[in-house]
């Protein structure tokens, strides 16, 4: 793996949509081999934070350093080079609905690698095997369930062997068994690849299981950051209410 410098450093991040301030000076750090779960109420800008980290939206101010490079001032081509090392699992998986499961996973490989069709085929098989979706390779996204779509989305996010992974509510809308399977999959990936991960979630139990640290976002800021035990020990009224409702 790389040096000891953190994989992701977010400093003083601010973002507004019209008069509504969504993020108000967020600071975060994630090291390689570490998973940080970002928790908070709906509409507190958690998904926006992920989109800012991958450069899909521009911050109003603040800096986002990915693998030692501040991405806020990069050109489109430079940003794309950074994105190749970041895997993103979207909330609804966001599979390309005109492509089959296999073609979805092959999409980034076709565009960013020099692999021959046979090599690509093998790589797609390997990725789909990892997420237990190999037998559904030729199906279209509309023909598989939401949980399966998330698995395929995960395989696609892993296609370019990223060392940073961003998960936007990976278990939302899934039954507890499928949610558990996705969480196990994320844990396995962490152990195997030593990636730096940020998981945006509402699921306190899941977050506790897969994360090294938790960050609770409230009113555009990180209210508290630490282990689950740190959250439990907090005297803050909002933290206590969040833990009580989430457990």
């Amino acid at each position, binding site marked *: 793996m790389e040096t000891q410098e953190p994989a992701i450093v977010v400093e003083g991040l601010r973002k507004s949509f019209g008069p509504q301030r969504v993020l108000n000076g967020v600071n975060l750090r994630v090291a390689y081999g570490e998973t940080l779960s970002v928790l908070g109420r709906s509409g507190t800008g958690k998904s926006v934070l992920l989109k800012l980290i991958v450069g*899909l939206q521009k911050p109003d101010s603040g800096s986002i350093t990915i693998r030692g490079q501040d991405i806020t001032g990069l050109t489109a081509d430079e940003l794309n080079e950074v994105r190749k090392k970041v895997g*993103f699992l979207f909330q*609804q998986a966001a599979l390309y609905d005109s492509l089959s499961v296999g073609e979805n996973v092959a999409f980034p490989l076709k565009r960013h690698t020099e692999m021959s069709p046979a090599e690509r085929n093998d790589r797609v098989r390997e990725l789909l095997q990892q997420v237990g979706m190999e037998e559904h390779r030729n199906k279209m996204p509309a023909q598989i369930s939401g949980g399966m779509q998330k698995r395929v989305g995960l395989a696609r996010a892993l296609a370019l062997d990223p060392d940073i992974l961003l998960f936007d509510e990976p278990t939302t809308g899934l039954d507890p068994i499928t949610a558990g399977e996705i969480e196990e999959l994320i844990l396995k990936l962490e152990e195997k690849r030593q990636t730096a991960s940020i998981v945006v979630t509402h699921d306190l139990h899941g977050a506790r299981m897969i994360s090294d640290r938790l960050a609770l976002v409230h009113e555009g800021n990180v209210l508290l950051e630490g282990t689950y035990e740190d959250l439990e020990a907090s005297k803050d009224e909002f933290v206590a209410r969040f833990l009580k409702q989430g457990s």
Partner: protein
Amino acid sequence: MQEALSKPNAGMRGLEVTKTLFSSFFEWFGELGLFCGRLARAAVSPPFEGRELVHQLDEVGSKSLPLVALAGAATGVVLSLQTYASFSRFGAKSLLPAVIIHSIVEESGPIVTGLIVSGRVGAGIGAELGSMKVTEQIDAMEASAVNPYKYLVATRVLACVLMLPLLTLAADFCGVIMGWLTTTLEEPMSLGLFFEAGLKTVNFNDFLPPTLKTAVYGLIIGLIACFQGMRTQGGTEGVGRAATNSVVLSSLFVVLADVFLVRLILVFFP
């Protein structure tokens, strides 16, 4: 008293609505300008998406062909029926082939093709890109370091530009053949004679500029449909709105462009 108070309020509201309409109008053109800039940058920088372009040529071209051919044929029939009735009255039936060929090649064929394609392809592109936008597929593409302006927009716009003139040729051909067939049912005439009489007064300048002007229609249809699709907001309702706006605006701009292009052609190819 209440009435007197409500009148200035209604006036203020009217002013506000007008102001909003004006600002939305200029905002739309401003955004379109930025969109064109992004598209131009994406279109000229390698790597080029050849495979996706071929796919889009098929989507825009081959799949529109039956509809365009049918519309061209119907135009030929209607034109022949209308002109036969009028020209018979004035004893100018000998001019029928020339009038039918001129009308179809110079105006009816191109504009019918433009409107048919803006309906079929414009709605398709608007809805497809709109749906991709609201389901975060376009974000996913960008996050995978693939430029959606290059992969999705440039290929669709280029396909429209390239296919419109070819589809126009098909519409012209079907229109002229059906025009002859309809005429010959009223006044028997061989196809050879119809063409000989009709093409006597047609030269290259009558044929080429009106066919090539449809490339501009293609540009308009592709641009507006992609633009409306890429700025879609608000779930399935937004997708529906994007599809409708794509058709309405592209048809409107095709008709407006026709006015300008016809004048331009008359100036440069008198």
